[in-house]
């Protein structure tokens, strides 16, 4: 086993964490953002604590929506043109899938803890 200095071990740990795609909001954070770019939601999966206000912003030059997929429909942004935003506050824990009503192959998830 290669001996690592404390600094090297911390750096290696950071690299490992960087590979994890799920974005976590620090506990106590009240807001989070999802970008819409190139017909995709980024991050595709977002984990937030209950009570977080999530804001979607469309950076594409084509309109998109953020529409909850599971019935009953919890939220629907309506058409978001370029630079338009829509916010929704997730109060209850759970996993919420959503999609773009114009381009249904675009999908995302918000996991509320």
């Amino acid at each position, binding site marked *: 086993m290669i001996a690592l200095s404390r600094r090297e071990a911390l750096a290696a740990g950071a690299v490992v964490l960087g590979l994890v795609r799920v974005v976590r909001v620090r506990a106590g954070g009240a807001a989070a953002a999802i970008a819409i770019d190139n017909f*995709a939601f980024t991050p595709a999966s977002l984990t937030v604590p209950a009570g977080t206000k999530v804001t979607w912003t469309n950076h594409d*030059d084509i*309109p998109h929506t953020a529409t909850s997929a599971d019935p009953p429909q919890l939220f629907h942004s309506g*058409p978001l043109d370029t630079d338009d935003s829509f916010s929704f506050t997730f109060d209850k824990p759970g996993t919420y899938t959503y999609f773009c*009503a*114009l*381009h*249904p*192959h675009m999908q995302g998830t918000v996991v509320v803890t």
Partner: protein
Amino acid sequence: MNDPKTRRAALECMIWAGAGVVWTVAGGVPRASLLGSAEAAEASFSFVQISDSHIGFAKDPNMDTPGTLAEAINQIRALPQKPALLLQTGDVSHLSKPGQFDIAEKIIGTAGLDAHFVPGEHDVLVDEARPFVARFQAREKQGGADGGYYSFDQHGVHFIGLNNVTDLKAGGLGNLGAAQLAWLQKDLAGRPASQPIVVFAHVPLWTVYADWGWGTDDGAQALALLRRFGSVTVLNGHIHQVMQKIEGTVAFHTARSTAFPQPAPGTAPSPGPMKVEPGRLRTVLGTTEVRVVAGRAPLAIIDTPLAG
């Protein structure tokens, strides 16, 4: 009357009298069928298709979508043979706003043709398909309440307008739905297989490129109902470029947009508006003319760009 000179003279006389002649070839032997003038009118007619005008879009590469739509209509008005009707295959507006519908309706009205519309996904963003149906399908006999789909007959051809942009499911493609498919089955029942069918809908009914949503989840079910017919032409829009495919007796064809082009499948990170060099925009926008001649399948489809 077997003397070639006499037969030819008789044919020429009938042509001068306004009768039409249709030549068909069977077993390698050409046969001429003589038609009365009424039948000649039935035998040959044309119609046009425009698509994806996206009124309300004003970004690179097109800051003037009403202007390019007007140019498309002018191109249609200049056709040597006046079309019998106009089909608009959806995305009339960019954001389903009443003002955008107003502008499109006014410009398309200047064609002076009976126009038949089906919605695109950009047309059903507010209150689903209801405003679009009320404005653009008021003359049609609706297949289902608020359904946005209908059919009609003209010049012996059966036209079917389908709606595959409402009730879209997450992760899915275009969608016809069970009610519309049931109506389609009833609508086609009892029709002779020899009747030419023209189906028009926004999203392609065959899978052009699933990753970009360019297809219809239950399109195959509609095509199964159409396969028994000898001549089926499926006209779509949505992908803003010409693409065609023939499968047995079914000819698929997509039209250019009058607003902006989109990239060929998989050639860009996403299917958004494709920027073009200044001056080239009109070469990638256009209109489509379809010519129908009785007894001839498939229909002749001619795409003409706005320029070049």
